[in-house]
């Protein structure tokens, strides 16, 4: 499938309210710069991120998905991210087993003070996904046609 040179991926980042969302806000406060294609969805805890959200994102046309939360041990809700860790260690492997490119799905621990890490992660994921081109796997069919047309 032809890929547009100026392909701008759509990336969604599920960020926990207490660490990563705060870190992303801090990145703003410090006027750090990262690509525009990363969109944050605020959730109370990374444990709130149902793996089905990720599937839905790929299906509806996201090219990359991030799940970010507090570092293990720092969860605002004390243990939420330990479940996140297990859940997504399994989910990431299952997605890859089903053909999703490893670079399209990322889980990261980013604390409220790690603005630079948020910026770097956003830039890194955006860069990788850009290289891979638009995601067609798991995408609803009419959307595949649509972006294929856009590519020609």
């Amino acid at each position, binding site marked *: 499938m032809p890929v547009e040179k100026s392909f701008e991926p759509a990336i969604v980042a599920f960020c926990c309210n207490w660490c990563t969302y705060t870190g992303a806000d801090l990145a703003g406060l410090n006027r750090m710069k990262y690509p525009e294609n990363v969109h944050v969805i605020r959730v109370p805890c990374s444990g709130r991120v149902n*793996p*089905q959200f990720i*599937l839905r994102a790929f299906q509806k046309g996201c090219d990359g998905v991030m799940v970010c939360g507090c570092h293990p041990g720092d969860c605002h809700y004390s243990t939420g991210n330990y479940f996140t860790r*297990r859940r997504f260690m399994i989910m990431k492997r*299952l997605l890859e*087993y089903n*053909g999703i490119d490893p670079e399209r799905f990322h889980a990261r621990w980013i604390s409220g003070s790690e603005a630079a890490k948020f910026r770097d992660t956003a830039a890194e994921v955006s860069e990788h996904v850009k290289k891979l081109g638009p995601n067609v796997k798991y995408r*609803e*069919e009419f959307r595949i046609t649509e972006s294929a047309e856009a590519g020609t």
Partner: protein
Amino acid sequence: MSEKQEKMRQCAEKLLRDGEAGYVIGWGETRFDDRTTPIFVEDPAGAGAFVWNEYAINSLAKYLLDDKYPDKKIGLFTRGCESRAINRLLKDNQIKRENVYLIGVPCDGKKSDRCTLCRERNPILYDVLLWTPEDDPPPAAGRFDRVKDIEAMSPDERYVYWGETYDSCIRCYACRNVCPACNCRECYADMSKTGFQGKQHSRSDNQIFGVTRAFHVGDRCIECGECERVCPMNLPIMGQTQKILKDINELTGEYECGMDATSENYLGRFDLDDKDEFM
């Protein structure tokens, strides 16, 4: 064979006559020589309908969910696979142990693909054991051999493999209906407004169903193989749940489901020093 069959019939008859059980679930004859069908016998006189041959293939445990609140105990012929399924249902708080009477029948392997990977022929859980346990056979192949084959492919090849698999899926949900780990009151796939599952018969929606089902049951799968047996399209779908089991085995060591009714499921607990790749 007939001796064991006779024991089964006698046991069922006694249970029913003594009023110990309201009815007994087992296998019965069909019009075909190479088929049996699950039967439910209430009348002591009908116990002669139970058969025990190499075609007694269906796992019976899931039928317990159709009668979760029985007035009397339900008798159930129980092999290794049934007993692991019952542990599954007990752990998932779906049935009560006191509502079932488990008649242990050590299995000698039946004529089904699902039995070739069986590693637990003898019931783990029973109220009575009708004959001496069988030796477990050496497995025909490594537990995760076929998962390894798929893992060896490139991402694109894996996508095509599963994509083509799910292209054939007719979304009949037979795999779900027969699975002892699929014990929700209402399956997410049957709901219309959750947004989790599209209803189209498309590769995308079929695959979403496949992956979601795998994730829902993966850490609770007892590897009975019923999902593949009942699939009208013969799809190798246990390769999905086994992938999860393989990963759990690699991440935290020996992990097998349905061996008891108390162990917490992998995704329902955590260790502080779980492996972490998300630094």
